[in-house]
Protein backbone atom coordinates (compact mmCIF):
# COMPACT_ATOMS: atom_id res chain seq x y z
CA UNK A 1 0.00 0.00 0.00
CA UNK A 2 2.45 2.71 1.04
CA UNK A 3 5.02 2.04 -1.69
CA UNK A 4 2.18 1.75 -4.12
CA UNK A 5 1.00 5.26 -3.40
CA UNK A 6 4.53 6.52 -3.35
CA UNK A 7 5.43 5.25 -6.80
CA UNK A 8 2.14 6.40 -8.20
CA UNK A 9 2.79 9.85 -6.83
CA UNK A 10 6.38 9.79 -8.04
CA UNK A 11 5.24 8.81 -11.48
CA UNK A 12 2.62 11.51 -11.46
CA UNK A 13 5.14 14.14 -10.48
CA UNK A 14 7.13 13.35 -13.59
CA UNK A 15 4.12 13.89 -15.74
CA UNK A 16 3.11 17.43 -16.37
CA UNK A 17 -0.61 16.80 -16.40
CA UNK A 18 -2.74 18.01 -13.52
CA UNK A 19 -3.29 15.23 -11.03
CA UNK A 20 -7.10 15.32 -11.27
CA UNK A 21 -6.93 13.70 -14.69
CA UNK A 22 -5.06 10.70 -13.37
CA UNK A 23 -6.96 10.42 -10.14
CA UNK A 24 -10.33 9.15 -11.25
CA UNK A 25 -10.93 6.44 -8.67
CA UNK A 26 -13.24 7.79 -5.99
CA UNK A 27 -11.46 7.85 -2.67
CA UNK A 28 -13.47 6.30 0.17
CA UNK A 29 -15.30 9.01 2.08
CA UNK A 30 -13.59 9.22 5.42
CA UNK A 31 -14.28 11.79 8.03
CA UNK A 32 -10.98 13.43 8.72
CA UNK A 33 -10.88 15.87 11.50
CA UNK A 34 -10.14 19.37 10.26
CA UNK A 35 -6.42 19.98 10.13
CA UNK A 36 -5.59 16.30 9.71
CA UNK A 37 -6.77 15.69 6.17
CA UNK A 38 -4.35 13.49 4.29
CA UNK A 39 -2.21 15.34 1.79
CA UNK A 40 -2.44 13.85 -1.66
CA UNK A 41 0.46 15.83 -3.11
CA UNK A 42 3.86 14.24 -3.45
CA UNK A 43 6.30 15.29 -0.80
CA UNK A 44 8.54 17.69 -2.81
CA UNK A 45 11.73 16.58 -1.08
CA UNK A 46 11.70 13.15 -2.62
CA UNK A 47 13.66 14.60 -5.53
CA UNK A 48 16.65 15.07 -3.24
CA UNK A 49 16.51 11.43 -2.16
CA UNK A 50 16.34 10.39 -5.78
CA UNK A 51 19.20 12.71 -6.73
CA UNK A 52 21.53 11.39 -4.03
CA UNK A 53 20.63 7.79 -4.81
CA UNK A 54 21.27 8.36 -8.50
CA UNK A 55 24.59 9.99 -7.70
CA UNK A 56 25.57 6.96 -5.60
CA UNK A 57 24.59 4.49 -8.28
CA UNK A 58 26.42 6.48 -10.94
CA UNK A 59 29.59 6.62 -8.87
CA UNK A 60 29.52 2.90 -8.25
CA UNK A 61 28.57 2.00 -11.82
CA UNK A 62 30.99 4.35 -13.58
CA UNK A 63 33.98 3.97 -11.27
CA UNK A 64 33.61 0.51 -9.71
CA UNK A 65 37.31 0.38 -9.00
CA UNK A 66 37.35 2.23 -5.73
CA UNK A 67 33.63 2.74 -5.13
CA UNK A 68 32.23 -0.75 -5.67
CA UNK A 69 35.12 -2.22 -3.67
CA UNK A 70 34.54 0.21 -0.84
CA UNK A 71 30.82 -0.49 -0.91
CA UNK A 72 31.36 -4.26 -0.70
CA UNK A 73 33.74 -3.73 2.20
CA UNK A 74 31.48 -1.42 4.24
CA UNK A 75 28.08 -2.92 3.49
CA UNK A 76 28.05 -5.09 6.63
CA UNK A 77 28.79 -1.89 8.53
CA UNK A 78 25.82 -0.30 6.81
CA UNK A 79 23.65 -3.15 8.05
CA UNK A 80 25.01 -2.73 11.59
CA UNK A 81 24.26 0.98 11.53
CA UNK A 82 20.67 0.35 10.47
CA UNK A 83 20.20 -2.47 12.99
CA UNK A 84 21.71 -0.43 15.78
CA UNK A 85 19.45 2.53 14.99
CA UNK A 86 16.24 0.55 14.71
CA UNK A 87 16.81 -1.69 17.74
CA UNK A 88 17.90 1.23 19.91
CA UNK A 89 14.97 3.32 18.76
CA UNK A 90 12.40 0.75 19.82
CA UNK A 91 13.85 0.73 23.34
CA UNK A 92 14.24 4.52 23.32
CA UNK A 93 10.51 4.88 22.71
CA UNK A 94 9.76 2.55 25.63
CA UNK A 95 12.22 4.26 27.99
CA UNK A 96 11.05 7.68 26.82
CA UNK A 97 7.42 6.82 27.47
CA UNK A 98 8.13 5.49 30.94
CA UNK A 99 10.42 8.44 31.68
CA UNK A 100 7.87 10.94 30.36
CA UNK A 101 5.08 9.44 32.46
CA UNK A 102 7.46 9.49 35.43
CA UNK A 103 8.15 13.17 34.88
CA UNK A 104 4.44 14.03 35.14
CA UNK A 105 3.69 11.55 37.93
CA UNK A 106 2.09 12.93 41.08
CA UNK A 107 4.03 10.48 43.21
CA UNK A 108 7.04 12.53 44.37
CA UNK A 109 9.43 9.56 44.45
CA UNK A 110 8.70 8.54 40.87
CA UNK A 111 8.82 12.15 39.75
CA UNK A 112 12.16 12.67 41.47
CA UNK A 113 13.75 9.55 40.00
CA UNK A 114 12.58 10.38 36.48
CA UNK A 115 13.73 13.99 36.77
CA UNK A 116 17.10 12.99 38.19
CA UNK A 117 17.62 10.56 35.31
CA UNK A 118 16.81 13.23 32.73
CA UNK A 119 18.95 15.89 34.37
CA UNK A 120 22.02 13.67 34.79
CA UNK A 121 21.95 12.09 31.36
CA UNK A 122 21.42 15.34 29.53
CA UNK A 123 24.48 16.79 31.21
CA UNK A 124 26.96 14.24 29.86
CA UNK A 125 28.15 14.05 26.23
CA UNK A 126 26.91 11.02 24.34
CA UNK A 127 30.45 10.01 23.37
CA UNK A 128 31.51 9.97 27.02
CA UNK A 129 28.45 7.90 27.92
CA UNK A 130 29.19 5.36 25.18
CA UNK A 131 32.79 5.07 26.34
CA UNK A 132 31.61 4.70 29.92
CA UNK A 133 29.28 1.85 29.03
CA UNK A 134 31.93 0.06 26.99
CA UNK A 135 34.94 0.43 29.30
CA UNK A 136 33.68 1.36 32.74
CA UNK A 137 30.46 -0.63 33.02
CA UNK A 138 32.06 -4.06 32.39
CA UNK A 139 34.78 -3.27 34.93
CA UNK A 140 32.08 -2.33 37.43
CA UNK A 141 30.12 -5.50 36.74
CA UNK A 142 33.26 -7.60 37.23
CA UNK A 143 34.14 -5.92 40.47
CA UNK A 144 30.67 -6.40 41.85
CA UNK A 145 30.73 -10.01 40.66
CA UNK A 146 33.97 -10.63 42.49
CA UNK A 147 32.70 -8.94 45.62
CA UNK A 148 29.59 -11.09 45.83
CA UNK A 149 31.38 -14.19 44.43
CA UNK A 150 29.09 -14.56 41.50
CA UNK A 151 31.13 -16.10 38.70
CA UNK A 152 28.67 -15.24 35.98
CA UNK A 153 29.22 -11.56 36.71
CA UNK A 154 32.90 -11.79 37.58
CA UNK A 155 33.70 -13.32 34.19
CA UNK A 156 31.51 -10.89 32.29
CA UNK A 157 32.75 -10.34 28.72
CA UNK A 158 31.72 -7.06 27.16
CA UNK A 159 29.50 -7.31 24.10
CA UNK A 160 30.15 -4.09 22.15
CA UNK A 161 26.86 -4.12 20.26
CA UNK A 162 24.69 -4.62 23.35
CA UNK A 163 26.59 -2.02 25.35
CA UNK A 164 26.31 0.42 22.46
CA UNK A 165 22.54 -0.15 22.39
CA UNK A 166 22.41 0.38 26.16
CA UNK A 167 24.41 3.60 25.88
CA UNK A 168 22.26 4.98 23.08
CA UNK A 169 19.01 3.99 24.77
CA UNK A 170 19.94 5.46 28.13
CA UNK A 171 21.03 8.74 26.57
CA UNK A 172 18.33 9.20 23.96
CA UNK A 173 15.69 7.90 26.38
CA UNK A 174 16.22 10.98 28.52
CA UNK A 175 15.62 13.36 25.62
CA UNK A 176 12.67 11.28 24.49
CA UNK A 177 11.20 11.45 28.00
CA UNK A 178 11.16 15.23 27.74
CA UNK A 179 9.48 15.07 24.34
CA UNK A 180 6.78 12.76 25.66
CA UNK A 181 6.32 14.87 28.78
CA UNK A 182 5.80 18.00 26.72
CA UNK A 183 3.51 16.15 24.33
CA UNK A 184 1.32 14.78 27.09
CA UNK A 185 1.18 18.13 28.86
CA UNK A 186 0.09 19.82 25.64
CA UNK A 187 -3.19 17.89 25.74
CA UNK A 188 -5.83 19.91 27.63
CA UNK A 189 -6.38 18.69 31.19
CA UNK A 190 -10.11 18.41 30.51
CA UNK A 191 -9.48 15.34 28.37
CA UNK A 192 -8.05 13.40 31.30
CA UNK A 193 -10.73 14.74 33.66
CA UNK A 194 -13.57 13.77 31.34
CA UNK A 195 -12.09 10.32 30.98
CA UNK A 196 -11.64 9.89 34.73
CA UNK A 197 -15.15 11.18 35.40
CA UNK A 198 -16.46 8.31 33.26
CA UNK A 199 -14.76 5.86 35.61
CA UNK A 200 -11.73 5.01 33.50
CA UNK A 201 -8.49 4.52 35.41
CA UNK A 202 -5.44 6.76 35.01
CA UNK A 203 -3.74 4.19 32.81
CA UNK A 204 -6.84 3.58 30.68
CA UNK A 205 -7.26 7.32 30.24
CA UNK A 206 -3.62 7.69 29.22
CA UNK A 207 -3.75 4.83 26.74
CA UNK A 208 -7.10 5.54 25.13
CA UNK A 209 -7.48 9.29 25.46
CA UNK A 210 -4.30 11.26 26.11
CA UNK A 211 -1.55 9.34 24.31
CA UNK A 212 -3.42 8.94 21.01
CA UNK A 213 -3.79 12.70 20.91
CA UNK A 214 -0.22 13.31 22.06
CA UNK A 215 1.15 11.23 19.18
CA UNK A 216 0.11 13.94 16.78
CA UNK A 217 2.10 16.47 18.79
CA UNK A 218 5.21 14.38 19.37
CA UNK A 219 5.55 12.81 15.95
CA UNK A 220 7.70 15.60 14.43
CA UNK A 221 10.19 15.82 17.33
CA UNK A 222 10.30 12.03 17.67
CA UNK A 223 11.10 11.75 13.99
CA UNK A 224 13.78 14.34 14.47
CA UNK A 225 15.31 12.24 17.25
CA UNK A 226 15.33 9.22 14.97
CA UNK A 227 17.42 11.06 12.39
CA UNK A 228 19.75 12.43 15.06
CA UNK A 229 20.15 8.90 16.41
CA UNK A 230 20.93 7.54 12.96
CA UNK A 231 23.77 10.03 12.66
CA UNK A 232 24.95 9.67 16.25
CA UNK A 233 25.37 5.91 15.86
CA UNK A 234 28.62 6.81 14.05
CA UNK A 235 30.04 7.51 17.54
CA UNK A 236 29.87 3.81 18.40
CA UNK A 237 32.77 3.28 16.00
CA UNK A 238 35.08 4.23 18.87
CA UNK A 239 33.70 1.49 21.12
CA UNK A 240 34.46 -1.50 18.91
CA UNK A 241 31.20 -1.70 17.01
CA UNK A 242 31.88 -2.35 13.32
CA UNK A 243 29.36 0.13 12.01
CA UNK A 244 29.50 2.04 8.75
CA UNK A 245 31.95 4.62 10.09
CA UNK A 246 34.28 2.06 11.61
CA UNK A 247 34.31 -0.01 8.44
CA UNK A 248 35.18 3.14 6.52
CA UNK A 249 38.12 3.79 8.82
CA UNK A 250 39.29 0.23 8.41
CA UNK A 251 39.17 0.48 4.63
CA UNK A 252 41.01 3.78 4.67
CA UNK A 253 43.72 2.35 6.93
CA UNK A 254 44.32 -0.46 4.43
CA UNK A 255 44.20 1.53 1.20
CA UNK A 256 44.75 5.12 2.23
CA UNK A 257 42.26 6.80 -0.06
CA UNK A 258 40.40 9.18 2.24
CA UNK A 259 38.68 11.21 -0.45
CA UNK A 260 36.85 8.31 -2.09
CA UNK A 261 36.11 6.42 1.14
CA UNK A 262 34.65 9.31 3.08
CA UNK A 263 32.75 10.67 0.10
CA UNK A 264 31.03 7.33 -0.30
CA UNK A 265 30.40 6.95 3.44
CA UNK A 266 28.95 10.45 3.61
CA UNK A 267 26.65 9.71 0.67
CA UNK A 268 25.50 6.46 2.28
CA UNK A 269 24.61 8.26 5.52
CA UNK A 270 22.87 10.95 3.52
CA UNK A 271 20.69 8.42 1.70
CA UNK A 272 19.74 6.81 5.01
CA UNK A 273 18.82 10.09 6.70
CA UNK A 274 16.99 11.48 3.68
CA UNK A 275 14.89 8.33 3.30
CA UNK A 276 14.16 8.36 7.04
CA UNK A 277 13.10 12.00 6.85
CA UNK A 278 10.72 11.29 3.97
CA UNK A 279 9.31 8.27 5.76
CA UNK A 280 8.63 10.34 8.85
CA UNK A 281 6.90 13.11 6.95
CA UNK A 282 4.83 10.47 5.19
CA UNK A 283 3.83 9.09 8.61
CA UNK A 284 2.79 12.58 9.66
CA UNK A 285 0.44 12.92 6.72
CA UNK A 286 -0.97 9.47 7.19
CA UNK A 287 -2.31 9.81 10.70
CA UNK A 288 -6.04 10.09 10.87
CA UNK A 289 -6.17 12.40 13.79
Amino acid at each position, binding site marked *: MPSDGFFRNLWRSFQKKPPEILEQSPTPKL*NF*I*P*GAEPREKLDPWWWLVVAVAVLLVLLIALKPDPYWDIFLFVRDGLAITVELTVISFVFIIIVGLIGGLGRIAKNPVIHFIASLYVEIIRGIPLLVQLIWWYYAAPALIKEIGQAIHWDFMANYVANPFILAVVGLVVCYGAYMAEIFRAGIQSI*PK*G*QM*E*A*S*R*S*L*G*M*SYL*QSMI*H*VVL*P*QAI*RVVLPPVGNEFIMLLKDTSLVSVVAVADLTRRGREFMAAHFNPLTVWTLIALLYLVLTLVAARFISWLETRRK*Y
Partner: protein
Amino acid sequence: MVKPIIHIENVHKHFGRIHALRGVSLDVNVGEVVVILGPSGSGKSTLLRCINHLEVYDSGTIEVDGILLKTAQNINTVRREVGMVFQSFNLFAHLTALQNLTLAQRKVRKRSKAEAEKIARDLLKKVGITEKADSYPAQLSGGQQQRVAIARALAMNPKIMLFDEPTSALDPEMIKEVLDVMLALAKEGMTMVVVSHEMGFARAAASRAIFMDEGQIVEEGKPDKLFTNPTQERTKLFLSKVLQI
Protein backbone atom coordinates in the same frame (compact mmCIF):
# COMPACT_ATOMS: atom_id res chain seq x y z
CA MET B 1 -36.83 9.23 56.18
CA VAL B 2 -35.17 8.50 52.85
CA LYS B 3 -31.40 8.36 52.84
CA PRO B 4 -29.92 11.12 50.63
CA ILE B 5 -28.07 9.90 47.55
CA ILE B 6 -25.43 12.61 48.02
CA HIS B 7 -24.41 13.44 51.56
CA ILE B 8 -21.87 16.22 52.02
CA GLU B 9 -20.85 17.16 55.52
CA ASN B 10 -18.62 20.01 56.60
CA VAL B 11 -16.26 19.79 53.63
CA HIS B 12 -13.21 22.04 53.49
CA LYS B 13 -10.89 22.51 50.55
CA HIS B 14 -7.76 24.66 50.19
CA PHE B 15 -5.80 25.51 47.06
CA GLY B 16 -2.57 26.60 48.66
CA ARG B 17 -3.63 29.71 50.56
CA ILE B 18 -7.06 29.96 48.93
CA HIS B 19 -9.80 28.54 51.15
CA ALA B 20 -12.16 27.47 48.36
CA LEU B 21 -14.69 25.49 50.41
CA ARG B 22 -15.38 26.54 54.01
CA GLY B 23 -17.44 23.86 55.68
CA VAL B 24 -20.03 23.00 53.07
CA SER B 25 -22.85 20.63 54.02
CA LEU B 26 -25.48 19.52 51.56
CA ASP B 27 -27.86 16.58 51.12
CA VAL B 28 -29.40 15.70 47.80
CA ASN B 29 -32.23 13.18 47.60
CA VAL B 30 -32.96 10.79 44.78
CA GLY B 31 -34.71 12.52 41.91
CA GLU B 32 -33.93 16.01 43.12
CA VAL B 33 -32.64 18.70 40.79
CA VAL B 34 -30.44 21.13 42.66
CA VAL B 35 -29.25 24.31 41.00
CA ILE B 36 -26.20 26.05 42.45
CA LEU B 37 -25.46 29.68 41.72
CA GLY B 38 -23.06 32.23 43.03
CA PRO B 39 -20.40 34.69 41.94
CA SER B 40 -17.20 33.66 40.18
CA GLY B 41 -14.69 32.05 42.53
CA SER B 42 -17.31 31.15 45.13
CA GLY B 43 -16.40 27.46 44.97
CA LYS B 44 -19.26 26.06 42.88
CA SER B 45 -17.04 24.08 40.52
CA THR B 46 -14.86 22.93 43.37
CA LEU B 47 -17.86 21.55 45.25
CA LEU B 48 -19.10 19.73 42.17
CA ARG B 49 -15.67 18.30 41.44
CA CYS B 50 -15.34 17.06 45.01
CA ILE B 51 -18.48 14.97 44.56
CA ASN B 52 -16.77 12.72 42.01
CA HIS B 53 -13.35 13.28 43.50
CA LEU B 54 -11.78 15.13 40.60
CA GLU B 55 -10.71 17.40 43.42
CA VAL B 56 -9.44 15.95 46.69
CA TYR B 57 -11.01 17.68 49.67
CA ASP B 58 -9.08 18.32 52.86
CA SER B 59 -11.61 17.45 55.55
CA GLY B 60 -15.22 16.50 56.05
CA THR B 61 -17.11 13.62 54.46
CA ILE B 62 -18.80 13.00 51.15
CA GLU B 63 -20.96 9.94 50.65
CA VAL B 64 -22.44 9.12 47.28
CA ASP B 65 -25.08 6.41 47.08
CA GLY B 66 -23.95 5.18 50.47
CA ILE B 67 -20.31 4.88 49.39
CA LEU B 68 -17.77 6.89 51.31
CA LEU B 69 -15.20 8.57 49.06
CA LYS B 70 -11.93 7.43 50.53
CA THR B 71 -10.10 4.63 48.78
CA ALA B 72 -9.24 4.55 45.08
CA GLN B 73 -11.57 1.60 44.68
CA ASN B 74 -14.49 3.59 46.03
CA ILE B 75 -13.63 6.58 43.89
CA ASN B 76 -13.86 4.56 40.71
CA THR B 77 -17.08 2.90 41.82
CA VAL B 78 -18.60 6.28 42.53
CA ARG B 79 -17.40 7.79 39.26
CA ARG B 80 -19.24 5.07 37.40
CA GLU B 81 -22.47 6.18 39.07
CA VAL B 82 -21.89 9.90 38.62
CA GLY B 83 -21.90 11.50 35.19
CA MET B 84 -20.26 14.87 34.72
CA VAL B 85 -20.78 17.52 32.07
CA PHE B 86 -18.19 20.27 31.75
CA GLN B 87 -18.38 23.87 30.67
CA SER B 88 -15.83 23.21 27.91
CA PHE B 89 -17.48 19.93 26.75
CA ASN B 90 -14.19 18.00 26.87
CA LEU B 91 -15.18 15.57 24.16
CA PHE B 92 -12.33 13.26 23.19
CA ALA B 93 -10.95 15.15 20.22
CA HIS B 94 -9.53 12.12 18.42
CA LEU B 95 -12.75 10.10 18.49
CA THR B 96 -16.03 10.46 16.61
CA ALA B 97 -19.21 11.31 18.47
CA LEU B 98 -20.17 7.65 18.49
CA GLN B 99 -16.74 6.52 19.70
CA ASN B 100 -16.89 9.16 22.43
CA LEU B 101 -19.96 7.37 23.73
CA THR B 102 -18.67 3.82 23.39
CA LEU B 103 -15.13 4.10 24.80
CA ALA B 104 -15.94 4.11 28.52
CA GLN B 105 -18.87 1.73 28.08
CA ARG B 106 -16.48 -0.83 26.69
CA LYS B 107 -13.55 -0.19 29.03
CA VAL B 108 -15.46 0.36 32.27
CA ARG B 109 -18.84 -1.31 31.82
CA LYS B 110 -17.23 -4.08 29.72
CA ARG B 111 -20.03 -4.00 27.17
CA SER B 112 -19.62 -5.63 23.78
CA LYS B 113 -18.99 -3.38 20.79
CA ALA B 114 -22.45 -4.04 19.36
CA GLU B 115 -24.21 -3.42 22.66
CA ALA B 116 -22.24 -0.23 23.34
CA GLU B 117 -22.97 1.10 19.86
CA LYS B 118 -26.65 0.35 20.18
CA ILE B 119 -26.84 2.24 23.45
CA ALA B 120 -24.76 5.06 21.96
CA ARG B 121 -26.99 5.44 18.91
CA ASP B 122 -30.12 5.42 21.04
CA LEU B 123 -28.69 8.15 23.23
CA LEU B 124 -27.50 10.25 20.30
CA LYS B 125 -31.03 10.01 18.96
CA LYS B 126 -32.39 11.07 22.31
CA VAL B 127 -30.23 14.23 22.32
CA GLY B 128 -31.03 14.83 18.66
CA ILE B 129 -27.73 14.20 16.89
CA THR B 130 -28.36 11.03 14.92
CA GLU B 131 -26.84 12.31 11.69
CA LYS B 132 -23.58 13.43 13.29
CA ALA B 133 -22.60 10.12 14.89
CA ASP B 134 -19.50 9.77 12.73
CA SER B 135 -18.35 13.38 13.00
CA TYR B 136 -15.40 14.46 15.08
CA PRO B 137 -15.92 17.01 17.86
CA ALA B 138 -14.19 19.74 15.85
CA GLN B 139 -16.85 19.33 13.18
CA LEU B 140 -19.72 19.93 15.61
CA SER B 141 -21.16 23.18 16.91
CA GLY B 142 -20.84 23.98 20.59
CA GLY B 143 -24.42 23.00 21.29
CA GLN B 144 -24.02 19.72 19.46
CA GLN B 145 -20.78 18.99 21.32
CA GLN B 146 -22.42 19.61 24.66
CA ARG B 147 -25.33 17.34 23.79
CA VAL B 148 -22.87 14.60 22.78
CA ALA B 149 -21.09 15.16 26.10
CA ILE B 150 -24.38 14.71 27.97
CA ALA B 151 -25.08 11.55 26.00
CA ARG B 152 -21.58 10.29 26.75
CA ALA B 153 -22.17 10.65 30.47
CA LEU B 154 -25.62 9.03 30.21
CA ALA B 155 -24.19 6.04 28.36
CA MET B 156 -22.69 4.89 31.64
CA ASN B 157 -26.17 4.72 33.20
CA PRO B 158 -25.31 7.10 36.02
CA LYS B 159 -27.58 7.58 38.99
CA ILE B 160 -26.50 11.20 39.35
CA MET B 161 -25.58 13.84 36.79
CA LEU B 162 -23.37 16.81 37.61
CA PHE B 163 -23.39 19.85 35.30
CA ASP B 164 -20.76 22.57 35.62
CA GLU B 165 -22.02 25.64 33.75
CA PRO B 166 -23.04 23.51 30.77
CA THR B 167 -24.31 26.44 28.71
CA SER B 168 -21.98 29.29 29.58
CA ALA B 169 -19.55 28.56 26.73
CA LEU B 170 -22.39 28.48 24.19
CA ASP B 171 -23.76 31.05 21.81
CA PRO B 172 -27.25 32.18 22.86
CA GLU B 173 -29.00 30.35 20.03
CA MET B 174 -27.52 27.04 21.18
CA ILE B 175 -28.31 27.34 24.86
CA LYS B 176 -31.89 26.25 24.43
CA GLU B 177 -31.08 22.98 22.69
CA VAL B 178 -28.87 21.96 25.60
CA LEU B 179 -31.31 23.13 28.27
CA ASP B 180 -34.10 21.19 26.55
CA VAL B 181 -32.09 18.01 26.86
CA MET B 182 -31.45 18.76 30.53
CA LEU B 183 -35.10 19.52 31.16
CA ALA B 184 -36.14 16.22 29.61
CA LEU B 185 -33.62 14.48 31.81
CA ALA B 186 -34.99 16.18 34.91
CA LYS B 187 -38.53 15.16 33.98
CA GLU B 188 -37.39 11.53 33.77
CA GLY B 189 -36.41 11.75 37.41
CA MET B 190 -32.63 11.94 37.12
CA THR B 191 -30.88 13.26 40.19
CA MET B 192 -29.05 16.36 39.04
CA VAL B 193 -26.72 18.94 40.54
CA VAL B 194 -26.42 21.86 38.17
CA VAL B 195 -24.14 24.87 38.46
CA SER B 196 -25.83 27.41 36.26
CA HIS B 197 -27.17 30.92 36.16
CA GLU B 198 -30.00 29.99 33.81
CA MET B 199 -32.92 31.21 35.92
CA GLY B 200 -35.44 29.87 33.44
CA PHE B 201 -34.09 26.37 33.74
CA ALA B 202 -33.92 26.62 37.53
CA ARG B 203 -37.54 27.73 37.78
CA ALA B 204 -38.74 25.06 35.38
CA ALA B 205 -36.76 22.09 36.63
CA ALA B 206 -35.12 22.67 39.99
CA SER B 207 -36.55 21.42 43.24
CA ARG B 208 -34.03 23.55 45.11
CA ALA B 209 -31.73 26.45 44.39
CA ILE B 210 -28.58 27.08 46.38
CA PHE B 211 -26.65 30.30 46.57
CA MET B 212 -22.94 30.03 47.33
CA ASP B 213 -20.48 32.75 48.17
CA GLU B 214 -16.90 32.65 49.40
CA GLY B 215 -16.85 28.89 49.77
CA GLN B 216 -20.04 28.65 51.79
CA ILE B 217 -23.70 27.93 51.16
CA VAL B 218 -25.34 31.23 52.02
CA GLU B 219 -28.94 30.43 51.34
CA GLU B 220 -31.13 27.75 49.85
CA GLY B 221 -34.78 27.33 48.98
CA LYS B 222 -37.32 26.79 46.26
CA PRO B 223 -36.08 28.56 43.11
CA ASP B 224 -39.07 30.90 42.89
CA LYS B 225 -38.70 31.90 46.50
CA LEU B 226 -34.94 32.33 46.40
CA PHE B 227 -35.04 34.41 43.23
CA THR B 228 -37.91 36.68 44.22
CA ASN B 229 -37.58 36.86 48.00
CA PRO B 230 -34.00 36.25 49.05
CA THR B 231 -33.45 36.66 52.78
CA GLN B 232 -29.69 37.22 52.76
CA GLU B 233 -28.10 40.51 51.75
CA ARG B 234 -25.39 38.81 49.65
CA THR B 235 -28.00 36.86 47.69
CA LYS B 236 -29.95 40.02 46.97
CA LEU B 237 -26.84 41.80 45.75
CA PHE B 238 -25.85 38.92 43.50
CA LEU B 239 -29.33 38.44 42.07
CA SER B 240 -29.69 42.13 41.32
CA LYS B 241 -26.47 41.97 39.30
CA VAL B 242 -27.43 38.79 37.45
CA LEU B 243 -30.96 39.95 36.68
CA GLN B 244 -29.70 43.23 35.24
CA ILE B 245 -27.97 41.46 32.37
